[in-house]
């Protein structure tokens, strides 16, 4: 077979393919295990040796979304037949559903705070990046460095001052407080990433729009924004992943109204023994939004990461 620069040999293809699949499997196993556990019954989840094949059950999900109380067999027998599958599962464990758990609310908090702060970071970051990219700003380089410098220590290093500040300002355990905090952490990343993307967009496009009778702001959102969509999408993913997964600040600053899912899920452990399927169910559901968001934007993400390497 002749040597070619552009075409790999079939052996090379086979090798590369195997390597990629192997790596994918290794990284997927923990996720897969969590998802499998979420469909096990509590006894199956702690059996030794671990069960790979089992009868799937929704008990973990039912336990995740409900609080239950134990009742005597007599009471149980006197109850009318179960109305739905959830009640049937719970009664199988000699319990009745007492009410909904807090998970739904915590999950909603995560959605509000995660997407809220991502939106705000992208909104402000795009405007700032555009200004840095296009206008003559006094000390622009110093300002950019200053913005980046906020990320030169782990954010948790300032946890105590923020905790005190938030208590004083009444922002502790509020959605607004968490959104502002995550935005503050994400915005430096957003400004830097987006400035790079906007720098790559030739100014002539906006100038053409200005000539065509549009105002500066119209030129920005009608011409620059569509061009920057790729960069905005990939930056949004990074921001969302951070805000969605953030644990330390959430533990410190939220306890009730604004508590997000990450600090809540481990607390399930404390409710009547180690309910592994419920924890796994929480983790699985928690993974979904970011996964869906990333898959939806994956085209942009791939282009975004290699952006600027090859000019169209």
């Amino acid at each position, binding site marked *: 077979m002749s040597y070619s620069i552009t075409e790999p040999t079939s052996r090379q293809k086979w090798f590369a393919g195997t390597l990629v699949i192997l790596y994918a499997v290794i990284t997927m196993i923990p996720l897969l295990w969590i998802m499998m556990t979420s469909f096990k019954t509590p006894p199956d989840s702690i059996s030794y040796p671990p069960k790979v094949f089992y009868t799937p059950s929704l008990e973990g999900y039912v336990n995740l979304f409900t609080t239950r109380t134990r009742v005597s067999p007599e009471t149980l027998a006197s109850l009318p037949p179960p109305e739905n599958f959830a009640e049937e599962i719970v009664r199988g464990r000699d319990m009745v559903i007492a009410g909904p758990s807090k998970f739904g609310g915590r999950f909603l908090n995560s959605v509000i705070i995660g997407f809220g702060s991502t939106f705000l970071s992208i909104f402000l970051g795009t405007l700032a990046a555009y200004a840095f990219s296009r206008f003559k700003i006094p000390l622009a380089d110093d300002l950019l460095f200053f913005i980046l410098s906020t990320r030169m220590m782990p954010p948790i290093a300032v946890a105590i001052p923020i905790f005190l500040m938030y208590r004083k300002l009444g922002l502790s355990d509020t959605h607004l407080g968490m959104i502002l905090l995550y935005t503050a952490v994400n915005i430096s990343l957003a400004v830097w990433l987006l400035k790079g993307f906007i720098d790559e967009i030739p100014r002539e496009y906006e100038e*053409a*729009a*200005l*000539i*065509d009778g549009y*105002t500066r702001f119209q030129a920005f959102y009608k*011409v620059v924004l569509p*061009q920057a969509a790729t960069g905005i999408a990939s930056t949004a993913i990074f921001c969302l992943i951070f805000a969605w997964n953030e644990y330390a600040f959430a533990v410190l600053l939220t306890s009730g109204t604004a508590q997000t899912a990450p600090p809540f899920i481990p607390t399930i452990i404390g409710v009547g023994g180690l309910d592994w399927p419920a924890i796994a169910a929480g983790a699985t559901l928690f993974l979904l939004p970011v996964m869906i968001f990333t898959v939806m934007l994956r085209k942009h993400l791939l282009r975004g990461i290699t952006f600027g390497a090859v000019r169209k």
Partner: protein
Amino acid sequence: MAEIIIKNLRKDFGDFTAVKESSFTIADGEFFMLLGPSGCGKTTTLRMIAGLELPTSGEIFLDGEEISQRPPSQRDIAFVFQMFALYPHMNVRRNISYPLVSQGMKRKDVRAKVAEVAKILGIEDMLDKSVGGLSGGDRQRVALGRAIVRDPKAFMMDEPLGALDAEFRERMSEELRALHDRMGATTVYVTHDQLEAMQMGDKIVVMNNAVVEQFGTPQDIYDKPASLFVADFIGSPSMNFLNFNGQIDEGATEVTLGGARVPVPLQHEHQDGQLVFGVRPEHVVLADDGALRAQVLTTEYLGTTQIVVLQSEFGELKARVDSSLPVAAGDQLGISFNTPTITLFDQSTGRAIRSELNEEALRNG
């Protein structure tokens, strides 16, 4: 359609002066060339007329109105960019209709107008294509379409052919000129290609180092250069310069070049010191009775003419002569010059010395 008057226009970028007090007038319907080497300020001047840069000082009148501080959207000027700057996320039709949409024109009228423009440019069949797949020439046509669709008062073109292949450039330059003649719109065209400027322009402004060197018709610029820079920049091969130390008086009709007396056009001012005798290659005459002697170094055959490179006591000289003239390297020849075409320059300032030949051309430049 409109007349554009530029008065004392200046642009500073911090400490750097891109354009120094420049003044010239672009007549209604003129195809006007801004010519100069890169970095001379020609594009900045164009961008100031269009409103993409605001001048530091000076005035711009369009159709009698002072517009120098207005945003581009309020100037009614179209701009064609070197890299076309077609909106990549829109198809050809939307690109061309974009200026009309901003004016709030009705959808039906927009469609009709776009169709009309597409017909003029011969791009009807590509209206629904994305701009990404178009060839350079077609992109340029779409960019032109976007410019002409709203019947602006004037067109600004920033090296619109610079991104095209040589072969295509020729065709597009003809198309451009034909389009201009048909529409009669005032057009300001920036180029660094002197040939393009001579071919297409009604008038040319030559700029160098942020200064307007000369302003006039292509013939004036070529035959009556106002400075050494213009004489050197325009024409290929460029003008021959013979440096000599001497004196000329008002009313003089000859200069002394290395002992020989060489006739020149009637001079209108006194000058002495280091002077330059400028003559275009086609005005160098090979004649045995010539006042100067020279040796042939090489010849370049160009078809109907040939360029003869000569070594004289004043350095190298190029002569453009009929290719049938038998000349060979090593020949010793006499040379003389076509007197009415000679321009003398002051070497220290680089300015042409006023004479019968250029008096009028220098007055409006």
